[in-house]
């Protein structure tokens, strides 16, 4: 099993290329942190890897098969996405939102079976969202909503999980909690790729990719990538890195 990006270039409409000649391969069981300055192309890479954006050049392949050859439903059974700013219809109950994750399995015209209901419950319990299952999502806090969306992606029972800045709107406790969830899922064999704004969250990953102007400029363990010279060049600011198993990065 692999998710492979090969020689991919991409631009929006007639704009400049935001991803250029990018090559990267993701492995199952790995938690990958995607970091880089604003405009580096992190979210675009998530769009390309999830098949909602089509590369101008190159291919994205899942198990050796180009994404565009997958049907939407087939792809959604393999690959779950937690968007940066999830749009949630506020009158829906948390459970109904998670149930949407079953759509690629059930189909759009059939009803949930007992198996589906079991998966929904398990997914919600996983991220501790089951207790507010009947509450309308509009009444939930940012952290609770984020967990609902994560549960929805889990309900897809995917092999791959793409998280686009999942901790952006969360306070400290939930940031840590979400990263623990992500790490646990990777430990269970899922391939998890997370766009991370906070470099210290990236320190918890198995592997870190530093993206700058549409290219990968560093790829390795947190210790290898979270180094002052590399970060300073990409982010354009002085940083101090406290080295170690989990490096701590602060801007000067």
């Amino acid at each position, binding site marked *: 099993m692999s998710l492979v990006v090969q020689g991919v270039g991409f631009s929006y409409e007639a704009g400049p290329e935001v991803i250029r000649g990018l090559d990267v391969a993701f492995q199952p069981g790995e938690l990958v942190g995607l970091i880089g300055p604003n405009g580096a192309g992190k979210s675009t890479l998530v*769009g390309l890897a*999830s*098949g*909602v954006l089509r590369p101008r050049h190159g291919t994205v392949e899942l198990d050796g098969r180009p994404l565009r050859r997958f*049907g*939407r*439903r*087939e*792809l*959604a*059974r393999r*690959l*779950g*996405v937690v*968007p940066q700013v*999830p*749009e*949630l*219809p*506020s*009158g*829906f*109950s948390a459970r*109904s*939102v998670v149930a*949407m*994750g079953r*759509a*690629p399995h*059930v*189909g*759009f*015209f059939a009803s949930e079976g*007992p198996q589906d*209901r*079991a*998966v929904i*419950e*398990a*997914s919600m*319990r*996983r991220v501790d969202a089951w207790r507010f299952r009947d509450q*309308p999502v*509009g009444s939930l806090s940012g952290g609770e909503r984020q967990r609902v969306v994560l549960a*929805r992606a*889990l309900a*897809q*029972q995917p092999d791959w999980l793409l998280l686009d800045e999942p901790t952006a709107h969360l306070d400290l406790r939930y940031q840590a909690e979400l990263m623990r969830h992500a790490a646990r899922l990777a430990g269970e064999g899922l391939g998890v790729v997370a766009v991370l704004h906070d470099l210290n969250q990236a320190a918890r990953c198995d592997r870190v990719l530093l993206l700058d102007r549409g290219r990968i400029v560093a790829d390795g363990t947190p210790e290898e990538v979270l180094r002052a010279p590399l970060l300073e060049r990409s982010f354009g600011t002085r940083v101090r890195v406290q080295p170690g198993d989990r490096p701590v990065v602060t801007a000067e």
Partner: protein
Amino acid sequence: MQRTAVRAVPAPSPRWTVRTASAVGLAAVVVAALAVGSVAITPGEVVGAIARGLQGRLDGAMDVIVWQVRVPRVLLAAATGAALALAGTAYQAVFRNPLADPYLLGAASGAGFGAALALVHGATWAWLGLLGVGGAAFLVAVTTVVVVVLLARRRGRLPIVSLILAGVVLGSSLSAATSFVMLADRERTAGVLAWLLGSFAFAGWRDVAILAACLVPAVPAALAARRAFDLLLVGETSARQLGLPVERFKWTVVLGATLLTAAAVSVAGVIGFVGLIVPHAVRLAVGPEHRELVPLSVLWGAAFLVGADLVARTVLSPAELPVGIVTALVGGPFFLVLLRRGREAW
């Protein structure tokens, strides 16, 4: 992923209570509408006339009134209400816009233009005469929406904003064209105006049959697609990532809702407000999930229009109010009350 034992669902769930109550409510309004008319007919006679009508042997003027006038009128109001509310639900889901109604893409202005052409020029242009007012309205309505969709299309996709803009602009142009056609022949203006306001006054079995033929496939299809409608509410990108072929689904829904709207308009004229407020009212009452929204919109839409028509034909009897005025006057305040008291809908 660990398995969790499935719990048995406890007996009568609240959603079935609401559905049953809605169905009973619709039945009650229909019975009231069948019982009341400008000619006093006892309930017994009404039942007898319907029985004889079903057997195809009408006996006397009372039977004709019940079976040929009142029953088709009530059924057509119900079918029109159901069709418009369903189309409104579909449009609101596709456009994710609370102001979307079945006429958003120009179906009403198109139908109005077709009807005006047929009413004014039907006698001179043979093909128009052949189509009849309803046929011309239906044809021009569908053509209008197809043109709007083609104008709004960008590289195989249907961006919502260009769709709405194209619909509004083409709709305004067609309304202007309708006014122009009406000016050309002042005598027939009253006929065109009466048609545009919408009425069930001269409803016949043929009209009921036409609309029923559209509803019979549309309602089950919409019920079946409830999950896809829900998915549209989380945004098109997320919907795609959850496996929905968004563009294809949008095309299908816009086409289906347009055919339904055009059919409703071609038999009943342009009746406003139903397609806009009924889905909202249901949403305020039971929430936005289409599992509830689709069936309840159909039931409530039918009941609302049957009730509105009942008011329209009794309040000023023997004169009639245009039913569109009643839907706005009665529906507006009712909706505002719901809006004040209801829960958050979107």
